[in-house]
């Protein structure tokens, strides 16, 4: 026991000393460069101080970010299965991924599904909640906390177990509620069946795209669901992705908070002036609120999209006890993790991560290019 404490102590002290030493070293290098360029003494001292203080971050970045990035780039061109050393294979991993791996294609399609449906759903619900909370109603603080709580709770095992129980198709809370309402109201029953029809057709279509076989899609669209039907959340591959979208919507608290801040920053005079001019509530929302919160929407869009493309925990925890249907909701990051840690294919996993990085970069680039057309930064 004492030995392990001593070991920890030595490493802690060593780490602190390393940080100090590397900071001083980086400061000295900066100072030498400035001197070599003919900078004044004050300039040299400023360079020393600036780089020495920035050094802990720079060194951390080099060790924990840059070095792994370079290593993973190298590994992506190798076959690397521990404990064997990496073997250079050129672009073979990339070729296999893009041309000969139907599972990767399926993971890409799933991820695209979550971006296409999960992200807009998150944005809409977050905005809706923010608008409601901005009405200065009674219990605003309680609701604000309640809606933000999922973000704090995260996706820990207890939370996800609760979701697993709620999603149980037979007697879970959600389906019990849906059955009860469905029996009480014919209209609700019809709406529920319409929702099931649309959802299953959509998901069958995506499964068809993944497998190249549209038999299930044709079968699904050919029949309207029977009166007793309920969603088969974690039970059917036609519902697993929908369950994850619901989970995404449930955890939209941080987006809601960003929207709330943006809504609070809109000067009330704008609404007053519009009201005097006879604008309806809808017109005020459409013409004033939406444009003025567009920077928040843009931020939520970028951050949310990156988060969804990098999504891992939701399918991993929610469906790990349903291995047969789990593969219907594999995301690219899940696939990356599976290749690297389950199958020990580190080189292949690295190649997936670089393709993922490229996808995020390209989409983000185009979003930034397009923001001029719809994001309103100027309040004047």
């Amino acid at each position, binding site marked *: 026991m004492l030995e392990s404490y001593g070991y920890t102590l030595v490493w802690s002290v060593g780490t602190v000393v390393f940080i100090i030493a590397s900071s001083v070293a980086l400061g000295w290098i900066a100072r030498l460069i400035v001197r070599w360029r003919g900078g004044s003494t004050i300039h040299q001292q400023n360079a020393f101080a600036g780089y020495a203080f920035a050094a802990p971050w720079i060194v951390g970045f080099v060790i924990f970010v840059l070095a792994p990035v370079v290593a993973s780039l190298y590994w992506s061109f190798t076959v690397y299965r521990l404990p064997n050393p990496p073997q250079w294979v050129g672009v073979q991993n990339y070729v296999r991924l893009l041309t000969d791996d139907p599972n990767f294609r399926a993971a890409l399609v799933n991820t695209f599904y979550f971006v296409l449906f999960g992200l807009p759903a998150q944005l809409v619900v977050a905005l809706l909640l923010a608008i409601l909370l901005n009405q200065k109603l009674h219990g605003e603080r309680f609701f604000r906390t309640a809606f933000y709580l999922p973000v704090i709770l995260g996706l820990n095992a207890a939370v996800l177990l609760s979701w697993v129980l709620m999603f149980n198709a037979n007697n879970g809370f959600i389906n019990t509620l849906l059955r009860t309402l469905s029996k009480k109201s014919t209209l609700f029953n019809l709406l529920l069946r319409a929702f099931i029809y649309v959802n299953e057709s959509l998901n069958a279509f995506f499964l068809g795209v993944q497998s190249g076989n549209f038999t299930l899609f044709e079968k699904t669209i050919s029949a309207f669901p029977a009166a007793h039907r309920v969603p088969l959340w974690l039970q059917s591959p036609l519902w697993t992705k929908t369950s994850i979208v619901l989970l995404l919507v449930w955890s939209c608290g941080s987006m809601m908070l960003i929207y709330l801040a943006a809504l609070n920053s809109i000067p009330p005079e704008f609404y007053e002036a519009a009201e005097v001019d006879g604008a309806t509530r809808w017109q005020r929302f459409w013409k004033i609120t939406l444009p003025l919160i567009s920077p928040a929407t843009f931020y939520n869009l970028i951050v949310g999209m990156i988060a969804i493309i990098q999504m891992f925990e939701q399918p991993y925890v929610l469906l790990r006890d349903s291995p047969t249907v789990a593969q219907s909701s594999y995301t690219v990051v899940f696939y990356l993790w599976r290749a690297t*840690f389950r199958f020990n294919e580190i080189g292949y996993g690295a190649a997936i991560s670089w393709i993922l990085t490229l996808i995020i970069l390209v989409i983000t680039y185009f979003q930034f290019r397009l923001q001029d057309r719809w994001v309103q930064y100027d309040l004047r």
Partner: protein
Amino acid sequence: MRIRWLATLFLILALALAACGGDTGGESSQPSEPQQEQTSQTAETKSEEPAEESTSQQEESTATESGAEKVTLRVMVVDYIKDKTDVWLENEVVPAFQKEHPNIDVEFIYVNWGTLDETVQGYFAAGEGADIINLGSEYIAAYGDRLAPLNEYLGEEAWPDIKQFVPASLDTVTWKGELRGLPWLTAPRAYMCRSDLLAEIGFEQPPSTFPEAIEEARAGTIIEDGALKRAGIVTTGRLDDWQEYIALIWSLGGELYKENGEPAFDSPQARDALAFMYERRRAVYPDETIADLPEATGSRLADGTAVCMWGNLWGAPPVDDPLWEQISFSPGLTDPDNYPESRPVVQVFNDWLAVPAYSKNVPEAAEFLKFLGSAENLNRYNKDFGSFPPRRDAWFGYVEEAKPMQIMGDLMNEYGRGFADIRETAKFREILQREMSAYFTDLQDLDTTLSNIQSAYTQVLQDAGMIQ
């Protein structure tokens, strides 16, 4: 002023580096002792010279026994019942072990089957982790090369108790002629049915053939309001268990691999077994819109939500439950009309404990395995699971007294086949799960499914260098 400051910094750095250097001297804090120097030398040649490594480990063990060094063993357990097995291991096994080995501490890491693969892969990737790992029946081919050879600790000469272990269970843990672990749980899988519920639907005995099984599944199933209230038959999942598929192929006389090592999913047995599973599933779930049974809070046989189940006694009522008077057994299903030679197969799972080659405490880990592998400990441990101790002299108490254990034991002896030699298990499992799911949900037909399994698994075995 600045120079003094830098000098102080240099001194601190030198001190820290000196401290680090002292530690990396290895397990030896006093390098002057020749025995410890030898240990560290052997560690460097570990990967190339396993035999020498073992010798030095034995020497290390001698040093340990003499009280020179305190060792902490980390044991990763996946077969456990929360608040039962863990309590027994920590409160009874470890203190008893430490009476004999006061210098060895034991810590347990509990994981589940869903995360076993990545946990173990993580250990091997890092070259560091638990000293003892709990593996499943089919894992020897995947990890055999990366596990410490244990003949010198657990072989007949070193430990005569090993003769008591059932030979089939030792086969499960043997790789390249060496023991790589110790079996600690034997769980046969068979069909168990509630006789009273069978009688309700007009069956006197559990089904034993494919047509009977389909008929029983259909008759025993109750669906209300689009949801299952009772299933004629349950297995793991929704009658899509990949392990049962393998059992059915075997029972028809088929094999997973051809003589040249290629997969045999183009065989008629593989085809008919899968077609049967589809038909039986449709007997329980007429279509894929039926909501599954509620979450189980105990045995489905006990709560009456299933008429029959295929599995081990783990998912059945406790072995001393009076309900066993109403439960009857069947070793498995056959298809005598199409395969006259078919014979039921009771799949036997032998879970085991192994010592990874990266462990620095192989001798101590082997000592713990021997202790845990005593007849008394194995009997006590397996009692909670309703499984069999893998050594014969541990078959006392509940094994002799409980009726289901006697029946299962007889079935295992007559129809048992070890669930072993499943090549590239992790990938194979995913292939089967993916393709079976696609077939059962009508996304693809039988031919496509079998063709996909055959080609994907062939590719996996080729990538792994197991076939040309």
